[in-house]
């Protein structure tokens, strides 16, 4: 490997890594950017998630990050010069409450959403069932709905970013695992199979795996891995138009335009394996039948596993670490839906030391030392 020195090394070519690289390239500062990924195209969490985006949150920063990102998704085909498009679908998100307590949380989040102009509304159980007749009535008390929320194809977003980056001469290397990251003589040097990469600045976009790379600098970040598993059904007649999230079932449901329904089901466990566990379907199927009796007879086509990151306040971590020039962007399980805004913010921070975005203060890695955690009321487990 030639020992070219890069201005910025981004580790991780998921939604965060590629978006940050593209926004940096777009600034046309002449910075030489390298993105490395240990896997192949879309093989990590960004290629394995439920594909949804929403601005229905209970915290200003999440609402803003997602509003900005959704505006990007709406024009991504043009901005990224990707005529195929990214399969944007805005059929709304229906967040369901199966207890009065959950409904009260939704109601208070609605207030802050309206303050930011989110076109969300409160629905009672009848409204929800009218919107999605496949829903079961048992314990359902109501929900909130926002018609601007929706889905994109994670694969096409990643492919459009990849192609746009390569057009801007960003070097992207798959199958390249960073074994060791060090700082010597004011430079970073990353040991990869077959050589060493030198860079002025490093941005870690490996999400749940960020602590591994920080360890050699003596930095600890409280990021845990949260395995999740997903199910996709065979294509069937339209049954679920908006995306559903049930706070109590820990399930999200998304019927994509081909007719397949994707379920992401969470359960508390630890691990880093990208696999389907033997007992997963047996765990998930009764919950799904309880939530959506109307899909009981739909055949499951396939299951897969993914790993997302979990932080103590379930918020992303964005910013520079205690080591100068070493940055992190950890998504806390909403990387795909916030990636455009995060890419813009991180590119401004890293290339131009622009710290103006208020999100950077709220989501700083330092908040875990100062105890300034930010709690999202719509703590979801989608």
């Amino acid at each position, binding site marked *: 490997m030639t020992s070219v020195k890069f201005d910025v090394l981004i580790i991780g070519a998921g939604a965060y890594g590629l978006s940050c690289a593209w926004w940096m390239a777009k600034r046309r500062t002449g910075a030489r950017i390298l993105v490395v990924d240990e896997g192949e*195209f879309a093989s990590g969490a960004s290629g394995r998630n439920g594909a949804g985006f929403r601005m229905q949150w209970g915290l200003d920063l999440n609402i803003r990050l997602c509003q900005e990102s959704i505006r990007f998704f709406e024009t991504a085909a043009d901005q990224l010069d990707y005529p195929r498009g990214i399969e944007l679908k805005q059929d709304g998100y229906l967040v369901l409450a199966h207890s009065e307590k959950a409904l009260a949380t939704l109601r208070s989040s609605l207030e802050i959403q309206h303050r930011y102009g989110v076109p969300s509304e409160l629905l009672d159980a009848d409204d929800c069932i009218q919107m999605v007749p496949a829903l079961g009535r048992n314990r359902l008390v109501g929900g909130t709905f926002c018609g601007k929320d929706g889905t994109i194809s994670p694969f096409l977003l990643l492919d459009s970013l990849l*192609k746009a980056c390569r057009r801007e001469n960003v070097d992207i290397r798959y199958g390249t695992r960073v074994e060791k990251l060090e700082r010597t003589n004011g430079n970073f040097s990353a040991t990869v199979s077959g050589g060493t990469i030198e860079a002025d600045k490093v941005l870690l976009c490996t999400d749940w795996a960020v602590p591994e790379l920080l360890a050699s600098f003596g930095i600890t970040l409280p990021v845990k891995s949260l395995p999740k598993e997903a199910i996709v059904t065979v294509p069937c007649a339209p049954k679920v138009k908006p995306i559903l999230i049930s706070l109590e079932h820990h399930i999200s449901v998304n019927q994509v335009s081909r007719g397949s329904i994707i379920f992401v089901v969470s359960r508390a466990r630890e691990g880093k394996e990208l696999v*389907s566990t033997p007992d997963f379907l047996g765990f998930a199927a009764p919950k799904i039948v309880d939530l959506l009796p109307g899909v009981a*007879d739909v055949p*499951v086509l396939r299951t897969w596993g993914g790993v997302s990151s979990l932080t103590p306040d379930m918020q992303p971590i964005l910013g520079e670490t205690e080591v100068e020039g070493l940055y992190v962007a950890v998504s806390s399980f909403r990387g795909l839906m916030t990636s455009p805004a995060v890419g813009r913010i991180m590119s401004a921070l890293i290339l131009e030391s622009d710290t103006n975005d208020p999100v950077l203060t709220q989501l700083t890695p330092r908040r875990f030392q100062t105890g300034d955690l930010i709690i999202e009321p719509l703590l979801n487990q989608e």
Partner: protein
Amino acid sequence: MAAAVEAVRRGCRVTVIDEADRPGGQIYRQAHPALEGEEYAEPSELARKYALIERFKRIIGKVDYRAAASVYAVFPNGEMHFSADGRTEVLRPDAIVLATGARELAIPFPGWTIPGVMLAGGAQAILKSHRVLPGKRAVIAGCGPLPLVVAAQLLRAGGQVAALASLSPLTGMLRYPLSLWHGREVVREGLRYASTVRRAGVPRFTGYVPIRARGKEHLESVILARVSAEGRIVPGTEREIPCDLLAVNYGFVANSELAAMAGARMRRDPLIGGWLPVIDHFGRTSIPGLFAAGDGAELRGALIAELDGTIVGAAAATPAAGVDHPALKSKLSRALERRSRHLQFQKTLRRTLGLPIELWRLVTDETIVCRCENVRLGEIKGAIEGGHSSLNAVKRNVRSGMGWCGGRTCLPAVTSLIELSTGTAPTDMMTPRPLARPVSFAAIAHRRKVDAE
């Protein structure tokens, strides 16, 4: 069937899970009981079929036999999940023998999705299980023995065969007289099928392949053309033949997905079935307790599958420590010796059936390659040219292999297209994910957990 018979004979508690309603698999497929009648296979082949089915019937009362049941997952922890009668069950046996057979290898060409174009084994299955002719006037094409067999059986059933095209002549085997002798039972049957076809005066087109199927609602004609040894069309040799059935078979692909899903080490050899579990002569995979037998382990035909079933069934029924004991080998010596004799023949036969990779270029950009997700060649080429050169990366880009069949049909095509475009075949299999067969939420929620001791 043979593995079950042997394992029962050795005193094992055995569960047999089979997708079909009646035992027999693909090659020894039985008709629906109400449709039983004259069969068109060679008497010697039918004798083997019913002898084996008879042996299996004698143990049916002693095994937990599940017909019309589908294994949809085998996990690395040894759990086997299957569905039957709208419910699912989980087994965790001491040993699992995967005897999942093979499927046909499909090479796409323009028009291959028109109704009336089918794989030759599919046409044969219609004849075997429903006892109806899949078409009135057939063109049969491909490579290897199956097209000849299907042509003869259609003729014997009263059908008309307008042409029999084969990529390479089966007489290529004549160069290997010793191998022919090793495979004498099968060779004799092949000669009788050939004689049926000859007596009917079926026009033979050797060195020809179907390059296009034509028809609006249904198949109307097929264009055959000669191809060079490299697989390129020889201009000016095109022949259009009217027909309402085109039955094609270029060979087979092992059904090895369950072994891969269980985490067994895999290797790829297109001549003997594509991706295959790495096994030893007792069918042991790299996963303790997981065995593979028959065509699902490596393409070797029905005769070997039966012998293999006996050998692997015996190994699976033996405590792990005893498999390597010389006693087992000596008890199985007759089956092992017969299997190795037939292997001599099969190895030579497979060597004469290699397909030139250029055959995969018969498709045009508009041809659908992945039928489940309607992915056309142009899209796949675009993804490969865009730098995606692994099966997983192409899948994530254009969805080939993401549909109902999980890539069972299109993966050999995508693999070859990547090889044609980049010069090297992809080194990794597409990640095999559960479920191997679709199962409803209701059936999964309605689960019985039965644990074999």
